């Protein structure tokens, strides 16, 4: 039947199989596979699709909870927000494509995550991005890093703005390890009625299978497979591994899909993401326990002369696979044609467990789908954490001389540093207001989007901290989850669920695998403490260039629920004379701070060698968060802000800065902490703290609530004048005009990018 040339050992190697893996293919097939079948196994068993190095560990994550409607395993996780409304959300990496072609790589990352969300039947209402780049002032790679950043931001704006989803938040972070290794993690969230959720299942024997959306081209066919004997030099030239997206077409696809879903004609639907037609058909059949027959001759094609192999592996964007209820396919075709999109019946659901692919009347592949998914390789790769332990305590930060003794200057240096300065240059390129539901704009602790037709709002944030994770992966992960939860709390959101994107270097290195496993343990512990289950996520390994890996970088996307949109609060001080207080405690946590890097000049490697991260007590963290939520709930406080990078001094300064509808305000602060150095008090990064402000007449009730919750609480000053002045243990520590501080903070990034 399949008149392919014999499979040579070279072809097996080029498709990325180990000898054992290929043995397994032979065993499953009971014969030598055709080239097309080899391609299918190759993409389905790639790290990206099979999670072969991470599955062993991912099982430890908590995934259930009262609100969880759809746990991990579908295109996106779905969580109940009350009154039969749900949110569907997920974060996914697009790191490698964004390095090769920043604009299109980041753009198609946004496109892919939006499709994941609307495949569930949800209309996307918000997007965020976590971006990590190498330093812009790096001697060797500075220009390249800067152009990667510009390209990614441009691509995200291009896709998100044209599609019509607001990009409401995210983060931008710089570290040397991301030079030539940028991280682009895209998040999307949509809303859906509980009874209108759709699944990627090929149910109902005899049901027709439809291909909808854009035509298939030769985009993004797996790089490793290019050198197969069939392809000549000229063909290689024709095959870019980068996909180009079309946001306007995706908008049509969204509307057509939602309309077709409402019509009741759809039994199952899945987007064609990585590994395109192959993974969508195999996964849909495997989830439903059915088989599929596809005829590739019917697939709409953008180019002539495409082989079955190419069509199955193409990663052309803006395509979906739909299983219709029998007899209603015509209705679906009509809806898609109305939106100017292709919709073609390309096959049907059959009994059994086999995926049969025909092309030009010939059977090109015949594979048992359950075996491809269930028997995919699963590795418990060697782990070794000894390097981490051996390094600890080599360097003492106390021995370092600061670049300035003047604390006012140190604050200015921090405010202007890349990781703390305003990311306005980035988010101003995004449309963050489209759909007119954005209640808190980018640049805040968390973004907030109203849910129309209810009085609720959804808060969300995307956080990562590669530095903490590199020093101590388990504690780093706990700190990270705690910060994400705190960020939601600071806008009035009660954390409800989490999506994660785990960016790591090569899993074949034992120290990387160890830090991965530790990270999972840390996330598990913290998510259990906050009762925020993981509902979706993605793992990205092999983030290495020129033999150097990135810092282990888990990204946490946490979603919170605000029951009453009147209770949203922002981070800026509101009125002259208001009192400023801190919930939580400041401890000796200067070791891994931005201060240590920016003012003491320690490199990330030195921080790692030093081995110290801030200590976190999850019980205290919960107390602080609950207290803050209870203060917000009783309309007692007017601002809340979480000190993170740069510590208390930076957080207070940020609360002084002007914001939408509020001019800048000064503050007089007096901090008392006899046991700690002034630098540690000002710039240490102890977790579990929130800076709040409120009118003086509320003090009594606030103190009472703090006491009731057993939450450390101290008034530290008041909103006053135009300067930020801080005294420590009675002595003046710093004083500077807020306008000057704000200017440094606001313009630092754009000055670097537009020089």
């Amino acid at each position: 039947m399949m008149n392919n040339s014999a499979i040579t050992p070279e072809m097996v190697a080029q498709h990325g199989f180990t000898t054992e893996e290929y043995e397994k293919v032979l065993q499953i097939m009971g014969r030598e596979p055709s080239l097309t079948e080899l391609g299918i196994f190759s993409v389905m068993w790639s790290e990206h699709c099979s999670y072969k190095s991470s599955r062993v560990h991912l099982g430890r994550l908590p995934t259930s909870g009262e609100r969880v409607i759809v746990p991990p395993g579908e295109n996106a996780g779905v969580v109940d927000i009350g009154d039969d409304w749900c949110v569907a959300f997920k974060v996914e990496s697009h790191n490698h494509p964004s390095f090769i072609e920043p604009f299109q790589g980041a753009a198609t990352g946004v496109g892919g995550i939006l499709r994941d969300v609307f495949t569930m039947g949800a209309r996307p209402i918000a997007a965020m991005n976590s971006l990590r780049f190498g330093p812009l002032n790096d001697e060797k790679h500075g220009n390249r890093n800067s152009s990667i950043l510009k390209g990614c931001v441009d691509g995200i704006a291009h896709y998100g703005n044209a599609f019509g989803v607001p990009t409401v938040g995210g983060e931008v972070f710089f570290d040397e390890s991301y030079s030539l290794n940028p991280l682009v993690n895209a998040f999307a969230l949509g809303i859906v009625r509980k009874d209108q959720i759709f699944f990627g299942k090929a149910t109902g024997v005899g049901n027709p299978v439809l291909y909808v959306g854009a035509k298939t081209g030769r985009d993004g066919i797996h790089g490793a497979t290019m050198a197969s004997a069939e392809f000549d030099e000229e063909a290689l030239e024709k095959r870019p591994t980068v996909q180009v997206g079309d946001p306007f077409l995706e908008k049509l696809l969204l509307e057509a899909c939602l309309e077709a879903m409402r019509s009741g004609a759809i039994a199952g639907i899945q987007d064609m993401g990585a590994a395109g037609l192959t993974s969508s058909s195999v996964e849909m059949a495997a989830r439903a326990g059915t088989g599929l027959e596809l005829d590739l001759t019917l697939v709409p094609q953008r180019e002539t002369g495409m082989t079955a192999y190419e069509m199955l592996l193409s990663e052309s964007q803006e395509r979906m696979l739909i299983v219709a209820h029998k007899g209603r396919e015509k209705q679906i075709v009509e809806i898609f044609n109305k939106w100017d999109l292709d919709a073609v019946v390309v096959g049907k659901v059959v009994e059994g467990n086999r995926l049969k692919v025909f092309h030009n009347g010939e059977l090109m592949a015949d594979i048992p789908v359950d075996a491809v998914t269930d028997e995919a390789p699963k590795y418990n790769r060697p782990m070794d954490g000894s390097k981490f332990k051996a390094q600890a305590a080599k360097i003492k930060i106390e021995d370092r001389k600061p670049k300035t003794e003047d604390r006012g200057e140190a604050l200015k240096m921090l405010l202007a540093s890349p990781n703390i300065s305003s990311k306005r240059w980035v988010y101003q390129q995004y449309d963050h207001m489209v759909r007119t539901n954005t209640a808190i704009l980018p640049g805040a602790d968390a973004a907030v989007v109203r849910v129309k037709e209810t009085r609720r709002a959804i808060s969300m944030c995307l956080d990562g901290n590669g530095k903490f994770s590199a020093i101590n992966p388990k504690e780093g992960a706990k700190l990270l989850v705690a910060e994400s939860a705190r960020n939601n709390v600071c806008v009035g959101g009660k954390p409800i669920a989490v999506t994660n994107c785990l960016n790591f270097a090569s899993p074949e290195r034992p120290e990387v695998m160890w830090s991965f496993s530790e990270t999972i343990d840390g996330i598990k512990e913290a998510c259990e403490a906050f009762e925020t289950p993981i509902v979706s996520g993605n793992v990205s390994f092999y983030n290495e260039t020129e033999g150097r890996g990135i810092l282990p970088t888990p990204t946490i996307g946490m979603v919170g629920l605000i029951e009453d949109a009147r209770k949203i609060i922002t981070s800026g001080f509101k009125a002259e004379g208001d009192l400023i207080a801190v919930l939580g405690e400041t401890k000796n946590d200067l070791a891994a701070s931005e201060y240590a890097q920016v003012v003491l000049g320690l490199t990330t490697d030195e921080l790692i060698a030093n081995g110290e991260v801030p200590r976190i007590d999850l019980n205290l963290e919960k107390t602080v968060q609950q207290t803050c939520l209870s203060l917000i709930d009783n309309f007692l406080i007017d601002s809340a802000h979480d000190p993170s990078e740069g510590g208390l001094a930076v957080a207070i300064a940020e609360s002084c800065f002007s914001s939408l509808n509020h001019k800048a305000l000064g503050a007089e602060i007096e901090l008392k902490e006899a046991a700690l150095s002034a630098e540690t008090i000002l710039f240490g990064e102890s977790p579990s703290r929130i800076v709040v402000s409120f009118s003086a007449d509320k003090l009594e009730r606030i103190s009472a609530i703090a006491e009731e919750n057993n939450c450390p609480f101290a008034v530290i000053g008041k909103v006053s004048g135009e300067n930020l002045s801080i005294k420590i243990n009675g002595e003046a520590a710093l004083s500077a005009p807020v306008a000057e501080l704000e200017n440094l903070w606001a313009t630092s990034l754009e000055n670097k990018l537009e020089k």
Partner: protein
Amino acid sequence: MKAKIYVTLKPSVLDPQGKAIHHSVELLGFEQIQDIRQGKYFEIALDSQMSETEAQETAEKIARNVLANPVIEDYRVEIV
């Protein structure tokens, strides 16, 4: 001496702009149009002292490093 440089998307790369133009052309009633792909065209005036080989090399370098994105685009240089 003049260099003419044509920059086009590689044949396999999706061309949303070309597709939009195609759609408009169809709406205007032109039939039998199978496909439209668009690109960029540059004219660079070169020093007349240059030899044709030098001009070709210079123009190719400009095209490769500045005008085209070699990941998704092809270019063609003509010296006249």
